[in-house]
C-alpha cells in the first residue's frame, strides 16, 4: 500500500488508473474540493497544528519527535477520536542520532500500546520524499520485529484499517 503526498496528477484519469485504483492511497492535508480518482486520507502533522477541541476532521496524526509523544498522546486521549491512525516516519528516525533512535524505539512500543487500548492504528511509514528513501517490505518486517510487533498481524490490521477509513471523494 502506498500513500502519496504529491497528488496533483491523480485527479486526471489515465490508462493505468483502473489498474492501480485500490493499491494507491493519497494523503491530503486538507479535504479536497474536487474528488480525486483514488482513495484518500487526511493527514494532520504535529508541527502544523495544536490539538484542541476545535481541530478539524482528520484520519492520521503524524508524530514528529520522540520527546513530545507523551504530551501528544495525552492530548489525543483527551480529544477522544476513535479509529484514527498515529503515524511515525522512519525518515525522522533516520536523521536522529543513535541515542534518539533508542528513544524512538521505546516511544513506538508505547504508542502501539496506546493504539491497542484506544482502538487506534499505529502506522509506520517510510516518510520518503525521494525514491532512494523508500523502504522495502522485508525491511519494514525487520523493523516491526525489532519493535516486538508481529509483522503479519500488523499488516492485516493496517489493511483492514485503510479499507474502513480511506474513501473516494469528500465525505
Amino acid at each position, binding site marked *: 500500500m502506498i500513500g502519496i503526498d504529491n497528488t496533483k496528477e491523480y485527479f486526471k484519469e489515465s490508462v493505468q488508473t483502473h489498474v492501480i485504483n485500490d493499491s494507491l492511497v493519497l494523503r491530503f492535508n486538507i479535504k479536497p474540493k474536487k474528488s480525486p480518482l483514488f482513495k484518500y486520507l487526511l493527514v494532520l502533522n504535529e508541527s502544523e497544528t495544536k490539538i484542541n477541541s476545535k481541530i478539524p476532521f482528520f484520519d492520521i496524526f503524524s508524530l514528529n519527535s520522540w520527546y513530545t509523544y507523551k504530551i501528544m498522546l495525552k492530548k489525543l486521549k483527551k480529544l477522544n477520536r476513535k479509529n484514527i491512525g498515529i503515524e511515525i516516519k*522512519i525518515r525522522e*528516525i*533516520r*536523521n536522529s542520532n*543513535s541515542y534518539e*533512535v*533508542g528513544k524512538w524505539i521505546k516511544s513506538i512500543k508505547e504508542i502501539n500500546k496506546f493504539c491497542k487500548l484506544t482502538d487506534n492504528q499505529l502506522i509506520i511509514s517510510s516518510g520518503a520524499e525521494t*525514491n*532512494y*528513501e*523508500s*523502504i*522495502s517490505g*522485508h*525491511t519494514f518486517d*525487520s*523493523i516491526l*520485529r*525489532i519493535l516486538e510487533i508481529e509483522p503479519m498481524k500488523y499488516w492485516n490490521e493496517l489493511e483492514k484499517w485503510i479499507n474502513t477509513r480511506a474513501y473516494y471523494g469528500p465525505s
Partner: protein
Amino acid sequence: MVLRRKDKRRYLLLYVNDEITTHFQDTNNRDKHESITILRKRFSELFGTIELEKASIKVIFENNLSSPHFLILKCNLESIDNMLCAIAFTSPPLTTIKISGTIKKLTSSIAIEI
C-alpha cells in the same frame, strides 16, 4: 547429527545515495567504503560491537557492477533483521533493493535493472 560447517549467509543489493557519491567522486570505490563505514558505525551504535562481529558484514565487489551506485554486502542470516534495521536507519539513506541467498541471483537481477 550433521555438523553444519558454514553459517548461512544472505547477500544484499544496496543502492548508495547520491549524497554519499557526490562527496566522494572517486573511481576507487571510496564512496562505497564510506557508506560501509557509516553503516557499520550505525550498526554498532544500535546493536553493539558483539552483534556487529556476529553479523560479519563483508563487502562484495563484483566486476560486472557497472553503476557506482550499486553495492553488494554479505551478512549472516541470523543478523539479517538487525542489518536491515541499520540500513533503514542510516543517514544519508541506503536503499535495500534485493536480498538473495546466492550472489549469482543477485547479480543477474542487477543486469536486468541496468
